[in-house]
């Protein structure tokens, strides 16, 4: 092994010296270098070179560290309220009692929102922060055209950027959740069951998809808008629209189209489903539906249930498979929205003409 590396080094040094003391090239020489070029030592593919650099940039950036600090603090805060609440009140609900560990993520005493609510609130911010200047800042710095002049496929750049941000988000969420679990384990002294652990992993997965949606949306904006500030503001306005105005709009629509108190049950049901469809467009609604179901096994349905459907049910928590089945539409919706955003960003990046700034 050692001898191999030394010969390699020697070879490299020879190449290096050759570069320094270059003789005038004759045609044959040029032709021979052209031939040598093909079996070049491919120890690192250019794609992963970009991914590596992007991850390093994210981790070193102030922006990301501020986000980590923010998420870490909220995480600790919600954990604190959950633990104090848990030790003070104990479990009142028998059905939930079995899933005490999951309450670390959902429990709140009203002063601070729970961990899941924090994620649904801060996740978009994180996604937007990681993506809003992905392409346009490269363009403004004049590095994009230099990057494009290297022998890499054009889609490597956008794919690598999306992947790098996704890896960063995944590692961060996994670490945060494991930290919550770890601290919770020490504080409440109850071991999580396998099912609880799986549920938490599913929750992490859904959170990553949720953040990925906002990430890809902001990458789309970063391709479309030349100014990073415009892209960031557009991302934030979409987020605000969905969190505040869309709910208002839905409320208005609901009030206007609400059936009379005398209406038949079918009409009421139809109306309920209509409102639910309207709300189903909102990513944060999809996320909170999915996470509630995953973290509260007693949730049996996300839509209205009629009395006939309720008859004969045993008030027991659902197994993980059933909970997953229940949130499948939500998760599919989130993934689809994410993919649509990425596809749009991809297409518009591929069609973009890269000119020097």
């Amino acid at each position, binding site marked *: 092994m050692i001898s191999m590396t030394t010969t390699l080094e020697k070879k*490299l040094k020879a190449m*290096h010296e050759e570069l320094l003391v270059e003789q005038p090239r004759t*045609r044959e020489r040029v032709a021979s270098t052209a031939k040598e*070029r093909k079996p070049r030592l491919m120890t690192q593919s*250019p794609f992963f*070179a970009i991914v590596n650099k992007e991850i390093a940039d994210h981790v070193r950036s102030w922006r990301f560290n501020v986000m980590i600090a923010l998420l870490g603090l909220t995480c600790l805060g919600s954990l604190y309220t959950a633990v104090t609440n848990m030790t003070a009140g104990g479990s009142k609900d028998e059905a939930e009692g079995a899933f005490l560990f999951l309450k670390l993520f959902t429990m709140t005493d009203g002063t601070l929102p729970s961990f899941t609510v924090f994620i649904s609130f801060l996740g978009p911010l994180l996604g937007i922060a990681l993506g809003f200047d992905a392409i346009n800042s490269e363009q403004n*710095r004049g590095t994009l055209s230099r990057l494009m002049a290297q022998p890499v496929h054009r889609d490597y750049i956008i794919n690598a950027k999306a992947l790098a941000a996704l890896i960063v988000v995944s590692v961060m969420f996994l670490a945060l959740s494991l930290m919550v679990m770890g601290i919770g384990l020490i504080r409440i002294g109850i071991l999580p069951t396998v099912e609880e652990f799986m549920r938490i992993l599913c929750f992490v997965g859904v959170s990553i998809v949720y953040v990925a949606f906002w990430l890809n949306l902001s990458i789309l904006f970063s391709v479309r808008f030349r100014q990073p500030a415009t892209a960031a503001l557009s991302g934030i306005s979409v987020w605000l629209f969905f969190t505040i105005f869309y709910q208002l709009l839905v409320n208005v629509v609901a009030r206007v189209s609400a059936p009379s108190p005398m209406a038949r049950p079918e009409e009421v049901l139809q109306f309920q489903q209509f409102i639910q469809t309207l709300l189903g467009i909102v990513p944060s609604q999809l996320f909170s539906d999915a996470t509630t179901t995953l973290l509260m096994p007693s949730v049996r349905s996300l839509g209205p249930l009629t009395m006939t459907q309720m008859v004969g049910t045993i008030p027991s928590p659902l197994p993980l498979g059933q909970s997953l089945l229940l949130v499948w539409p939500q998760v599919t919706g989130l993934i689809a929205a994410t993919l649509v955003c990425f596809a749009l960003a991809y297409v518009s990046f591929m069609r973009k003409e890269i000119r*020097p*700034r």
Partner: protein
Amino acid sequence: MSDPIIELVNLTKRYPGYTAVDNLNLTINRGEIFGLLGPNGAGKSTTILMMLGLTEPTSGRVSVCGFNSTREPIAVKQRTGYLPEDVGFYEDYTGLENLVYTACLNGFSREEARLKAEGVLKRVGLWEAATKKAGKYSRGMRQRLGLADVLIKDPEVIILDEPTLGIDPRGVQDLLKLIHSLSREEGLTVLLSSHHLHQVQEICDRVGLFVSGKLLAHGNIETLSQTLFSNEPFVIEARVSSRDTADKLVNSLYQIDGVLRVTADGNKLDVGSARDASAEIARAIVESGADLTYLLKKEYGLDDIYDHYFREKVESYA
């Protein structure tokens, strides 16, 4: 011995509303330094982008190193170094780190990349600034770093878009000298675009004049000036003390053998002739009793070629 390395055949690029490059035909040989000259917006950058496959031509064909740039951009980009106009670097990375990244994108391993980066930094004379953040580099240093960035992939062709833009005259001299020596020592083909004529004049083997997407003329500077000014190879500029005498002199200067054109502009006389008649002109002026204050035999440089072309053609195209 022509060995074409860049071939443009009937290359056309149309944008909605205008034609950036219009039916361009050009061949550049291996080892040449070719200057692409033209005013801003002439289509130089677009042509370069098409050579690298960064923009698709509307019609026509580009091939670089035997590869079609539109179909096989990766193969072209492996062999071609491109320094964009106003090149940018990752400002919070050092010069060395920037180069290592480029080398990694070219498929070198990290160790190889580091060795390569050190080598090229020494070559372009930036070794002392290797560990400095690229954001702190001066404009001239940035261009040198750009050149290092281009050289790190061992290119066969380097394409430099406005490499001298915004650098002080001394820096321009150094940079051009560096480009020249690189080309000669390593047999690199260099294509550089510029609108600064005399800078480029010194190092280019051939130049092409580019206006409104058309290549108006190309060749080396002597043949260009010969073909352009064949009717009037010599121009002598003279200045006399007053405007009246200048007007009077016009007729007498026409009498001199070989003089084709005399124009008076204030107290300045512009004489175009088929042979070097500067001595006779001076004598004629002095004998007429006028005070000759200044006499200049013009030699055609790129400036005049440029002037000649752009003043007229730009107007006629516009």
